[in-house]
Every structure is written in structure tokens, then in C-alpha cells.
């Protein structure tokens, strides 16, 4: 967070810290970021650091144990509070499947929500070769993150690297790819442009949003705008729809040479590809020093939480709730909505601030 920035970057776990540091390096300016991990060695390097579960794990890490990481986060999540003063939007980078990323991310998001800070989560999903246990761990956290965070972008690592990539390099490359995408998003919000998008605009945009899709491409040359649209159309990160798109946020980052016709090409291309009849917001960044001769496009697709257009989200909410109940983490959605920070009203042990139809599992016929 720079002196005037209302955004804070949070890197969770060893891999999340790596991505956050990558974003900071790529951003190239005084971007403030905070890292949290159960492993004390993550503190070695740039960024403010908060050790989770010091008493419980002695800074040795969670050893891939998601429950141990969650308990560690529960013990010490309030240590984050001093870092969160004045923050209006938190961007979290994390990797699901492992211990701290899987266990501490949810607690972090919940803490942010308790403090009234909206959160956007960029979370990578494990490679297929990492095995079913890590995949299952990640899946278990995904639904709860969708409930707790304002917007979640899940990025399967398999889709971030090519099949021919060197295996030992795959993780590093994947983290770098995520970092570059998040950096572009950061620039889009922080840097002035002809069409400004700021943190408050994003705050409004992500109200009530669940899962999203995210991709960023960079092109150069005379046809760079059309090439960018083409690359986005082919992007696997944008291809796997969980639900129809509700809104599109599109950012175009370029130098002084950005042409109006290029904006038109990108705007039309993205809308035609991902949804012509949905809300579309376009922002631009002019940064000659970074993008001279190049053009980057960031696309965020906000989905309808698994609903058909016009249909309510109750079925989804109920099914997610049931999943959460059976989840080993045992953390369900609050459902308290606008009463999140209000005093509770209880009756026979039930939290009356949670909608009745949810508590009583009343199915709604749409």
C-alpha cells in the first residue's frame, strides 16, 4: 500500500508470499504488501511479515496440514490488524491445496470481513500431478472462500504453464504468471488513465459477487489490440465458465500511443466474446514508462454465482451451506448479510439474523 493507496496486497503461505513479492517487483514502485505464513523463513526478504501460529507451530510451517494451519491462523489472525488500518480493499494472493494457503486464507478473509474490508482473492489450484489429497483440500476451501470473500478468482496451475515446461520450473513460472496478472490489475486501479477505475469502484463492483474469471495478456505490434482480443478468446483461464457472466471489468494498459480505435477493438471484442448483454466497465492506464509500444489487457468476468440469468442464488447458497457443514474445517457461511457486524439475535440457539429460509433449509421454487 503506498502512502495514498487504499489497497493492500496480502500474500498467504510460502507460495502466496512468492507471488506477492513478484507483484511488488513487477510493480516497481513503493507497493506495500503484507505476508503471512506459518513458516518463519518466509520473513526472509521484502515485505512486512506476520507469523501465524508461533506458539503452536514454532515457525516451522504447517507441513501441508490444512487443519493445523487453520488452527494456527485462528490463534493469531488478529496480529494482522495493525497492518490493516486504513485499508479499503484487500487483494489476497494464495495457493490452495497446501497447508497454510489452504488453512489460513479463509481465516484471513473472515478477519477482513469482520473489519469491514472487502477482499478479492486470487488463488491458484494445485497441479493435477500433485495428487487427489491436495486437489480435495483445495476444493474444500473453494466453496467457503466464495462465501466469505467478495470476489474469488481461481487459477488452475495446469492452465498457467505449458505442457512442455520444465517441471522444476513450472511452479515458479506459474507464480510469475499470476504475479504479472495481479500487477496489471494493481496498475489498473492505482494508475491514472483516461477512464479511471479506482478501489471504491471495484468495491462497488464486487458487492455480492462470488466467483470470477481472470486473465491478462500483453501484445505489441500494429495489430496488438486485435491480437489481445484473440489471445483472450483463446485463454483457458476465461474458458471454464461455472455460471453465466454478470459483469465484465476490462482494463487496457498502454503508453502514450494508445489509439481510440484500439480501445474500440478491445471493447467490442471482449463484449462480443464474453457477453454482449452484460454490464461492461472499461478502464485505461497510461504509463509510458512501463508500456511503451506495448498494450496489456486485463479481463475480469464476474459470474452469477451458478445461477441462470434472472434466477436467484438460493439453491446455490443452500448447497454450498451443506458442503460447508460436512467440510473438515467446519466453517460455514455466515449468511448474516448486512447484520454481519451487528449484535446477534438468538432464539433457541438459532441466529435469527441468518435468513430463515437458509436456517430452515426451505427450498425455493424458481
Amino acid at each position, binding site marked *: 500500500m503506498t502512502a495514498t493507496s487504499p489497497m493492500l496486497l496480502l500474500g498467504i503461505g510460502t507460495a502466496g508470499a512468492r507471488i506477492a513479492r513478484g507483484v511488488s517487483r513487477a510493480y516497481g514502485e513503493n507497493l506495500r504488501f503484507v505476508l503471512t505464513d506459518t513458516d518463519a523463513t518466509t520473513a526472509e526478504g521484502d515485505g512486512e511479515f506476520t507469523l501465524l501460529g508461533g506458539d503452536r507451530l514454532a515457525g516451522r510451517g504447517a507441513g501441508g496440514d490444512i487443519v493445523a494451519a487453520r488452527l494456527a491462523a485462528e490463534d493469531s489472525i488478529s496480529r494482522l490488524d495493525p497492518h490493516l488500518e486504513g485499508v479499503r480493499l484487500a487483494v489476497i494472493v494464495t495457493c490452495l491445496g497446501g497447508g497454510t494457503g489452504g488453512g489460513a486464507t479463509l481465516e484471513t478473509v473472515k478477519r477482513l470481513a469482520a473489519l469491514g474490508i472487502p477482499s478479492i482473492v486470487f488463488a491458484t489450484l494445485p497441479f493435477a500431478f500433485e495428487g487427489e489429497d491436495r486437489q480435495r483440500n483445495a476444493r474444500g476451501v473453494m466453496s467457503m472462500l466464495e462465501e466469505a470473500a467478495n470476489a474469488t478468482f481461481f487459477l488452475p496451475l495446469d492452465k498457467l504453464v505449458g505442457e512442455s515446461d520444465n517441471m522444476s520450473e513450472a511452479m515458479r513460472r506459474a507464480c510469475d504468471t499470476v504475479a504479472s496478472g495481479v500487477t496489471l490489475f494493481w496498475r489498473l486501479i492505482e494508475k491514472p488513465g483516461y477512464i479511471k477505475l479506482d478501489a471504491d469502484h471495484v468495491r*462497488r463492483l464486487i458487492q455480492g459477487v462470488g466467483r470470477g474469471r481472470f486473465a491478462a495478456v500483453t501484445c505489441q505490434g500494429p495489430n496488438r489490440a486485435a491480437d489481445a482480443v484473440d489471445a483472450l478468446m483463446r485463454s483457458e483461464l476465461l474458458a471454464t465458465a461455472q455460471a453465466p457472466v454478470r459483469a465484465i471489468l476490462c482494463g487496457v494498459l498502454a503508453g502514450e500511443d494508445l489509439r481510440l480505435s484500439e480501445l474500440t477493438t478491445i471493447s467490442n471484442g471482449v463484449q462480443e466474446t464474453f457477453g454482449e448483454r452484460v*454490464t461492461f466497465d472499461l478502464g485505461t492506464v497510461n504509463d509510458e514508462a512501463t508500456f511503451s509500444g506495448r498494450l496489456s489487457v486485463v479481463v475480469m468476468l464476474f459470474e*452469477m454465482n451458478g445461477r441462470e440469468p434472472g434466477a*436467484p442464488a438460493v439453491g446455490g447458497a443452500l448447497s454450498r451451506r451443506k458442503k460447508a457443514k460436512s467440510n473438515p474445517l467446519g466453517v460455514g457461511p455466515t449468511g448474516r448479510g448486512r447484520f454481519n457486524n451487528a449484535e446477534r439475535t438468538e432464539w433457541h440457539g438459532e441466529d*435469527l439474523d441468518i435468513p430463515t*429460509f437458509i436456517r430452515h433449509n426451505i427450498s*425455493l421454487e424458481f
Partner: protein
Amino acid sequence: MSDLYAALEIGTTRTVLAIAEAESGKRLKITCHAEIPSTGVRKSQILSIPDATQSIRSVLREIEKRQLAQGSKVTIANAFLVVSGQHVLATHAEGQALVNSGTVGNDEINEAARVARQIPIPKGRELLDIIDQDYVLDNRGGLADPKGMSGNILKLNTLQVHADANRIRDAKSAAEGARLEIREPVFAATCAADAVTEDHEKKNGVLVLDLGGGSTGYAAYVNGYLVSSGVIGVGGDHITNDIASAFQTTNAQAESLKITTASAELGQYAGENARAHIGGFSSLMESRTISRRALDTVVNARLKELFTIIRETLEEQDILNHLHAGCILTGGGANLSEIESLAEKTLGLAVRRGRPLGVDGLEKENNPWNFAAVTGALLYAQKTDDSGSFFDGLFGRFFK
């Protein structure tokens, strides 16, 4: 010159101010009233004093504007504060007096009342009201007037209605910020009950439900006196939140759906495929439609639960079966379509909406039950004034 009274309600969804005048002992007339949407209030609790102050300033300005349109200007210096919220509690307290002569006289009755009023309320609470219930002379209870009866020990049962002192202080601070002094806090549910019930209904047993934005107050009367009162921390805001949660709408859209479309009962619309329209609130959202049945199911579930809680509460106290005059609904929540029907089925009582009685000035109001609590506060103010305990110099009045 007439006496003037003002009552302020800082509700979860709206801030209401009403002023009334009456010559001593004459019928009260509400000369001006205004309501504006509240800010900084959640579940009947002030979350931001500056925001609440701003709401009070706005409603004062609105009153001033309306007064000027009527050709007069009243500078309101202070007002009675209508209090609601689940922090309001009613607890039983008892005063005793020895009947030395063997026959109850005024001295014993006064002594029992004095002792009952000296019983301290819990720390951190502010007393809103002490309501006399019945007298017990030795083992004979349910006595309305024991004067002249024979016995040894006279007891007076009372209900102490008290609220979180900090909440009251917050409301006072908000009002003071708008240069409005709070004379006395009064409880919304009993005020509403006093405004909409007649004596014979209280004698026959009546329940008044004041359905507010952040909470629902109740007051049950049997044999002419208050037997039970309290607040459930569920109000119209919960219905709005439920709708917003079910259909992923903004609160404004959910509120609009609740007011214009939703029904407390299922099946009150034509066709199984009836749809309700949700307008887009900004460029970020498109308009869409939702199932009417689904909408009503959400609302029905919430209200049925609320009425069930009230029913169970009164059943536990053995009161429900004594409410022969039925139930009266007041507050903004009473406007919901078909709410009377649902309340009737759930409570097992005859239910109607409550129009304030004993006052003039609300004849043109489409939903006069919205103003039941402030009307009750004004009636209380008049009654207190007539008893001569205070209320001098509340207003400066200027006629143009």
C-alpha cells in the same frame, strides 16, 4: 395558549418527528409530522452518531418546511424519545406495604407503589417506565383497587421497563447534535399500544405488535393492565436482508420488492409462473425477474417464524389464551401485504392494523399505524403534562 408536544423516533429505517398541540384536558391534535430515511442505525441501534444527527436535522428541517407551509413556525427545543430495540427489557418488581389497621387505605397503596419504585434496576440500564399491574392482598391476586379491603400485607406487582443506558445516551447525543434536547425516553411498544387500543380491549386481553425496521416490540394486556412486554430483535430489515440474500439484490432493490410486491402469504397472485421485476440499480446490473412464489416464500418464512416466537413467548407465560380482543399490528412492518392473515393463522388471534385513537391530524395518512408509537409518546407527553410534573417552556412559538 395550547400546550405543545414533540416526539422523536430514531428508527432503523426511518426517523420520525411529530408535534402536537392540545388545550389542557382536550383531545390531542398532531399538527405536523414528518419522516425521512434513517442513516447510521442498524437493528434499532445507533452505529454512527453523526449520521443519526444528520437524520434528525433533516427531519427537523422537514417539519420546519411543513410548518411554514401551514403559516406557522414552531422551534422545537426538546422532544420525547421513542425507544425500541432488543436491549429494552421488562422485568417484574414488587412493592409491599403492611396493612396495620387491617383495612387497606391510601397510605398502604401509596407505600406499596413507593417501595416498588425504589427497587433498583440492573447496573448500566436506564428506566423507561414502571407500569403498575395488579395488587395482591395476602393471597388474593388480580385486584385492581384494593382500597377498603381487609388483609395484612398488600403487594403491588409492577413491570419495570428499562433499556441499555449507553444506547439511550447515544440517542441523546445524536439529538443534542441537532440542538434537540431529549426530555424523556419512552418505550415504543407500550406507546404504540396506548395509541391504538381502547380500555375495553385491554380489559378483554389484547396484544399489540409494533413491527419496526430493526426489531419488533410487543405489549400484551389482560384485565386492563400490561402483563408482558418485550422486544424481539427481528424487524422489517431482516425481511429486506433475506430477500437480498435470496435473490442477490442490493438492499434498495430488496426493500422495493418488499414494499411493492412481496406478500406474507403464499398464493396471493395469479398463476404459478408469476414473476416480479427487479430494476437494475446501476450500470453494473441489468434488470431481471424473479419468481413471485420464491419471493413470498422468503417473506412468509421470516414472518411466520417471528409470529411463532411471539406465540411461544406468550404461551410460556400463559397469556395467549387470555387475549380475547385479538392482536393489533402497528409500525412500518404492518404495511406488508397479507400480514394480518398470516398473523391470524400463526397466533390464533383475530388481527387488525392499528389506527391511532384519541388524536386528530392523521386522518389523511394512508398508513396511520406507521405513526402509532410517536402518537403514543405524544399522548404520554400530554398525560404527563396534565399531571403537572414538568413540561414548562418546551417550545418557543412564532406565528407568521
